[in-house]
């Protein structure tokens, strides 16, 4: 379970999060918002990469300050920067972290082979990370987040830049983990996928939670609620772009 209480965060005295209260229970919770709304910052706080200026964060009832290693054992993160070992191959990236999460080498190898197969990375498993395409890199980072079957998953834009087939596989994997009791918090801009898989949607706007609802039982769809909060754009095409 994720528990965030009155968390605030500013950069260069520019407030990004203005008192976020959020409790996420097992299931798939999607965090939506425009660029700069504070989604990635909130994920960084929840994954312990940064501390809130005020307020507190608990993962499974534990705080990072005192229990960082215990929390990380049960936490899977797909960070914004991916966090790959650039000079290792795709398979080596997975093999490198498995034992650190307490998996044996054979367990790691077997799980890594499964994940690479599911995510269509088998052909590129011996490609060094820095030579991989953006999609391959993201799928590798996602596989690293899933490898130890964490109880809590924090995923920053897991579907962006991913091909449709792999997207469908990721949806299936997240659904399975969620039904096994995992708590999943993800950010996304692809509202159709969110509508399909999320059991709960939280919309951030200017650093605050503006909406919190359950799509399966809501009267309105995710897209309607989203645009009612952030506003539907009414762009005017500049003259020089017209023929």
């Amino acid at each position: 379970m994720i528990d965030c209480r009155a968390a605030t965060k500013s950069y260069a005295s520019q407030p990004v999060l203005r008192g976020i209260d959020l409790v996420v229970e097992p299931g798939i919770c999607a965090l939506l918002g425009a660029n700069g709304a504070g989604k990635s910052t909130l994920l960084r706080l929840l994954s312990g990469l940064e501390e809130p200026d005020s307020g507190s964060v608990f993962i499974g009832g534990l705080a990072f300050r005192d229990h960082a290693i215990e929390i990380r054992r049960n936490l899977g993160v797909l960070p914004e920067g991916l966090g790959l070992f650039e000079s290792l191959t795709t398979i080596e990236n997975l093999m490198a972290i498995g034992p650190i999460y307490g998996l044996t080498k054979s367990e790691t190898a077997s799980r890594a082979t499964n994940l690479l197969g599911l995510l269509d990375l088998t052909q590129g498993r011996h490609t060094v990370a820095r030579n991989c395409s953006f999609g391959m890199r993201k799928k590798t980072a996602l596989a690293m987040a899933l490898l130890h079957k964490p109880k809590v998953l924090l995923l920053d834009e897991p579907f962006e830049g991913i091909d449709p087939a792999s997207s469908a596989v990721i949806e299936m994997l997240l659904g399975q983990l969620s039904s096994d009791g995992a708590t999943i918090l993800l950010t996304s801009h692809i509202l159709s996928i969110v509508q399909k898989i999320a059991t709960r949607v939280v919309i951030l706007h200017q650093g605050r939670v503006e909406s919190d609802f359950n799509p399966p039982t809501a009267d309105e769809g995710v897209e309607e609620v989203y645009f009612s909060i952030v506003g539907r754009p009414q762009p005017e095409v500049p003259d020089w772009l017209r023929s």
Partner: protein
Amino acid sequence: MAQILVLLSLLKKLMLKELGSLSSLRFNNFLFCILFIMSAGLESRAPKAAFWSTLFFQIVLLAPLLVTFSVDTQHRLPPARVATWPLTRTQTLLLSAVSFALNPLFIVLFFGYLFWMGLAAGLFFVLLALVVHATVYAVGRLPFELRTHAGPSISRTPLKVGGIAQEMWRELRGTLDFWAALFIAISGTLYRLFGHAPEPEAFPVLSLFVGIAMSTIAQRLLRLDEGRALLRYRLLPIAGWKLLVTQDMTFLIPLAVMVSLLSLRTGVSFGLVAIAVGRYPSLRQRANQRRWRFVGGDPRFGVAQVVLGGLAGIGAARTGLWVLAVAFALYLASVFWGELLWRRSLTG
């Protein structure tokens, strides 16, 4: 021509911006030593003799340095962006050649040689640089891409941190410091094995040079891949000291192998002190390292590494193993302190 002038003005702006931030004024200890040799040569009574006696180290440094100057010049503007601009091949070549002169270190080295050995040496340096630049430019346009290959795996050890050691070892081999150190180590070892009456006093000194060539790496052990793996390290359930010791050993073991036939105790003492001094910048400074470059360090820590490491290295060679023990104690203290710094970095 107007396009070229606009682009050159953009390049100048980018270069000044790089110079304007303190983090870009990065010093490599080995380069620092060469600049020191250069200034000492200029002030000596026989500057020309000083030039010839240090020519070996100058060549070891200059050859890869000129290649990296050239590559850096061409990458200051993102190549993928430049490729989409409406420039002819001649304009691109002209832009590349003129912008090469905007590298501040290139200008410093040119004036260094000009004042040290006169106009002929200065012009020879420029000519050499242009030849290197033209070669890099031509190779960069060959119809194939140089890709990184994984190389042999060393992660089959029973250690949990084998993968981290493997990542670190591959990144270490992606620095020019490593290859410069290896070149000096091989040359020194050949001198010891096959030289005519080799001078025993020279071995600890050669060992020190190997250490100095490697030492700036110790200031950037966590950021050799432009800081990307650091994000992963912070997400892993691993104690900071284990991570630090893994990285330190991946640095120290190759150094020990390189100096094993020169003066092992000198090299290892120097290495331990270099790691201990480099602990703070490695953990706290945000200067990310690019591949196939000399590592850029902080001059304050660089001087401390060379002076304290040099004292430890020479002390270990002359007075015995107790100096090595002191260096090891200093290293252990730096591991404990590093653990504290690591925890602090995890919580903000």
